[in-house]
């Protein structure tokens, strides 16, 4: 019973935190975009524009709910839902912090410690493209379909390199459980120092998986009107846009957990904090790392132009994939040599 209360409260908490972060990521995106372009950005709604995401949300709800005449109504509604669900599901296996002890009960700050966490992650992330594909196909619009095709082929191409980068990481740590991978990075032994190439590959593929610039060909305005969400309006469009920011958040969390020590930082256990407060500080550290990665996502977006479709494919298949394979073989060779 207690177990269920614990888990359900954690699920609700993680869900709320994810949504709030995704909400404010939209504001951060607009603010930082403005700063990068010597502007000020939204500052009218509330102090420093802090109520802007709320205003955007209200606006989304009050927009006309429109479904095209020849669209497949069921799939049309299913598309954004699936995108959102797949984006939120990934949070389940991420370890947010050390175990904390409340009233003599040990509580893990992770919803589910799957022993195949990395596999689950790769699986759910690849589910995300179904939302885009179904939505694009159900719209009965040539631009939407083109975008859906692009998104799925991009997903397939970059998932390969991402999976191989992950395999090299798993070979290094010897575990598929995210919790154990984070624990193994205790004391500054961050995986990024042992897998620099693997991290770079994973970073690039994360950008592609989250459909972010420079890999946002799926919603390329200059060629495809609005991409897969051309025909969407109201909160269904909001879901698609929101899912992108949740994906960004998840990608940042996964990269911090897999390569940057998760909730560890050097010297955390030598300051003399009690176990519980050290765990909470660890959670804060983890979120700082996530914030840094999210800033990087936004930073890249306002720096790089979009890839051309053939460039995208060439990068994925001819550069990232061979590099990932080489990295995997090298890692295997090294771990065999060093025992």
């Amino acid at each position, binding site marked *: 019973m207690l177990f269920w209360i614990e888990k359900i409260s954690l699920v609700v908490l993680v869900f709320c935190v994810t949504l709030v972060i995704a909400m404010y990521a939209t504001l951060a995106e607009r603010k930082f975009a403005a700063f*990068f372009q010597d*502007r*000020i950005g939204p500052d009218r709604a509330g102090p420093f524009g802090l109520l802007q995401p709320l205003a955007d949300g209200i606006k989304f709800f009050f927009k006309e709910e429109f479904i095209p005449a020849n669209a497949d109504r069921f799939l049309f509604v299913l598309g954004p839902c699936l995108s959102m669900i797949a984006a939120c599901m990934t949070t389940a296996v991420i370890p947010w912090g050390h175990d904390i002890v409340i009233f003599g009960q040990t509580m893990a700050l992770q919803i589910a410690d799957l022993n195949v966490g990395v596999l689950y992650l790769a699986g759910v992330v690849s589910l995300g493209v179904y939302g885009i594909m179904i939505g694009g196909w159900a719209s009965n619009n040539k631009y939407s379909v083109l975008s859906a095709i692009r998104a799925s082929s991009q997903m397939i191409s970059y998932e390969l390199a991402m999976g191989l980068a992950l395999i090299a990481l798993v070979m290094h740590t010897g575990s598929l459980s995210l919790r154990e991978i984070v624990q193994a990075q205790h004391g500054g032994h961050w995986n990024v120092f042992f897998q620099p190439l693997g991290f770079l590959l994973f970073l690039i593929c994360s950008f592609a998986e989250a459909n972010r610039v420079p890999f946002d060909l799926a919603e390329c305005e200059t060629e495809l009107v609005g991409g897969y969400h051309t025909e969407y309006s109201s909160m269904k469009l909001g879901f698609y846009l929101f899912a992108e920011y949740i994906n960004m958040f998840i990608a940042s969390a996964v990269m911090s957990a897999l390569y940057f020590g998760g909730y560890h930082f050097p010297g955390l256990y030598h300051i003399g904090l009690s176990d519980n407060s050290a765990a909470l500080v660890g959670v804060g550290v983890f979120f700082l790392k996530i914030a840094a990665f999210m800033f990087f996502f936004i*930073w890249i977006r306002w720096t*790089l132009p979009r890839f051309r479709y053939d460039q995208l494919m060439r990068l994925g298949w001819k550069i990232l994939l061979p590099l990932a394979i080489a990295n995997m073989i090298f890692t295997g060779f090294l771990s065999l040599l060093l025992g």
Partner: protein
Amino acid sequence: MHPLSSRSRVVVNKTMTFWERLYLPAIVGGLWITFRHFFYKKVTIRYPEIKRIFSPVYRGLHVLKRDDLGAERCTACGLCAVACPAEAITIDAAERKPGEEGLYREEKYAAKYEINMLRCIFCGLCEEACPKQAVYLTDRIVPSSFERQDFIWGKEKLVEPVEPEKRVDVSIRHYFQKEA
């Protein structure tokens, strides 16, 4: 052949070096450029709070001037309406009655003086045509409205207040008009 300007460049179709083909150094360079802009002075002017300074030759909302004693300068000659290329000005003239000398400077005055701000193209020809220095274009902006009727400005809105401190300053316009 000599280049026609100093900006011509010879295009070389050379292959990129390995360093250039890596892209990552170029990306880092680009990131550095955008990051520097993060701290640049922002060019935005927060409009309702801070207003941009207009150029002295700016032509905005009209004003009907009074003379030093507070009497309206306009004598309803109609030259501004004739000069107006957009036909935005409508004038009805009336004769000054005894005892109204403080209100109107000349024996004839404009009983109705309307400018349709939606028709007006703010060319300033009315100002140029006016022999009595009565109508001027100022550095004010015509306020927006939802109703078309609100853009037809009558005398009650065009004539400047009598109080000396509330008069509309058009000295800059005056200066430029003399120059012309």
